[in-house]
């Protein structure tokens, strides 16, 4: 535009005055009109330019505002990410409790229930057991737990009398206080850690419906007393030592004498039938277990333990009852397990002198899912077997004798669910005790 004006001016300047005189009026008007049009175009272009500049300025302002908003958004996103990382580091993946009360106090009912059918050799088969064994847990805070287990069963009344009797036994009832990471104090009716069966194998936990012979015949399952226990880790690979040390009233005499047949493993709970609170003999028994757990990788591990208990048992305090147990458990993969215990007991008596009894059992199980056959029924099956040996001084009627019993058990577990189990076992038995016979046991058990 300015070039055009400059050209016009240049043309005007370059024209000689004489030539101006020679321009006609018509030409002059035409030229004037042209100049006016050009002037109008120049003005129009100037106006357009102003509008474009204003638009450009507005665009720039809007762009600046957008950049500011973008910066704010980026800052917010950065802050949120930093807060998220900080929160995750402070409490990784934790869930908020449902409410505050359940954090400090919580009551739980666990346990198991069993139903059995038994066909003993030479006897009629029968549905023999309906057992309900709840465990009540009450947690107060992080370090205090009260736990009690009950065993409720039914049995026929005495021969020649009708009806049945419901028995309700307190299996254990103990108050636990976690003193620190390595020591817990337990007091009450304790499951005695002679071996591990009493604490970890009873009820539906065991893979075979009934207990090993030696466990039932030779060891007290529970006792009233106080105990210190805990686990001490070694390294980061899962290995640890565990220990239990306890004082319990211990076995006692059923009739107060020191005769061998009066030995009572399960009594002496501290309160006598005449409401007198006293130990039936002078001093409590001292016992303990030391174990070591050695994992090689998940599902591959070995645990070994040795435990013992000793204390006087007759009222006069003349005789000691002593027990020693060696226990072992082996897992080779998620499908194979083997465990067992060797048990020795010894006690003095007035009438028979020193009496020694011993027994051992070893049990193995293999889950067929380990064969990877991808067959649903097979995958839910576990084959189990057990060998029992017992050398005891009494038969089931408490008659003094020397008995040797060997029992072979073969069976299966069908896992209907992970907690509902159908078990079947047959026990082949060889014994010098005529009351011991082989039997078939079918059991439906549920852990809850």
């Amino acid at each position, binding site marked *: 535009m300015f070039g055009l004006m400059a050209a016009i001016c240049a043309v005007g300047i370059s024209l000689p005055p004489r030539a101006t005189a020679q321009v006609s009026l018509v030409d002059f008007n035409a030229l004037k009109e042209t100049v006016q049009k050009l002037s109008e175009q120049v003005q129009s272009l100037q106006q357009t330019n102003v509008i474009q500049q204003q638009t450009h300025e507005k665009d720039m302002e809007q762009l600046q505002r957008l950049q500011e908003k973008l910066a704010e958004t980026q800052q917010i996103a950065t802050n949120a990410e930093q807060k998220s990382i900080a929160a995750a580091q402070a409490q990784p*993946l934790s*869930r908020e409790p449902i409410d505050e009360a359940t*954090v400090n106090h919580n009551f739980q009912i666990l346990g198991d229930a069993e139903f059995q059918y038994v066909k003993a050799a030479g006897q009629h088969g029968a549905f023999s057991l309906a057992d309900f064994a709840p465990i009540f847990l009450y*947690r107060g805070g992080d370090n205090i737990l009260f736990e009690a287990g009950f065993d409720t069963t039914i049995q026929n009344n005495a021969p020649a009398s009708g009806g049945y009797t419901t028995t309700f036994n307190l299996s254990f009832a103990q108050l636990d206080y976690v003193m620190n*990471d*390595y020591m817990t104090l337990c007091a009450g009716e304790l499951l005695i850690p002679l071996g591990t069966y009493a604490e970890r194998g009873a009820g539906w936990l065991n893979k075979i419906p009934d207990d090993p012979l030696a466990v039932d015949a030779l060891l007290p399952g529970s006792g009233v007393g106080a105990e210190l226990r805990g686990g001490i880790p070694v390294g980061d*690979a*899962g290995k640890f030592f565990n220990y239990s040390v306890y004082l319990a009233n211990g076995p006692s005499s059923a009739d107060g004498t020191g005769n061998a047949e009066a030995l009572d493993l399960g009594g002496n709970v501290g309160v006598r039938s005449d409401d007198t609170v006293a130990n039936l003999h002078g001093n409590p028994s001292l016992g303990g277990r*030391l174990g070591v757990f050695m994992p090689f990788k998940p599902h591959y591990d070995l645990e*070994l333990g040795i435990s013992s208990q000793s204390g006087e048992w007759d009222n006069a305090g003349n005789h000691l009852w002593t027990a020693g147990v060696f226990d072992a458990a082996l897992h080779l993969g998620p499908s194979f397990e083997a465990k067992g215990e060797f048990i020795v007991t010894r006690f003095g008596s007035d009438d028979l002198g020193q009496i020694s009894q011993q027994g051992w059992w070893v049990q193995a199980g293999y889950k067929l899912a380990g064969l990877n056959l991808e067959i649903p029924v097979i995958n839910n099956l576990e084959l189990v077997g057990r060998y029992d040996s017992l050398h005891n001084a009494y038969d089931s009627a408490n008659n003094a004798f020397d008995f040797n019993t060997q029992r072979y058990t073969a069976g299966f577990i069908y896992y209907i669910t992970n907690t509902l189990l159908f078990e079947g076992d047959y026990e082949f038995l060889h014994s010098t005790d005529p009351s011991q016979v082989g039997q078939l046991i079918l059991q439906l058990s549920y852990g809850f």
Partner: protein
Amino acid sequence: MHSIFMKRQNLILWGAAALVVACLSGSGLTPVQAQPTSNTDSSSSTNSVAVAAKAPDAKPAAVKTQLTGAELYSMHCNRCHPERYPTERTAAQWKTIMLHMQIRANIPVEQSKLILQYLQDNSGR
């Protein structure tokens, strides 16, 4: 005859004690070790297995392991009973149950806490 039997019992008990003592001293058995891996960039690993620095003599790298709660859960719980699914209980319920199991099975507290964290992270509520 009786004394021979008692001597055999003593022998068995002393033998068992010696075995436990041997285990306590760490002889004869190897603790858990993760399989050595060719990937030496530990930062790229998503689990907690850490790879130790290579020794100057270029021997196979020693492997230090820190088991996760899930691994400890599968290691301990299945020893005594069929595994229970974390979704079967709430976070608060697992806290009570794990305290019970920690005491019953003498599980070290630090391992028990890792198992509890795993169960609560995957709990029903």
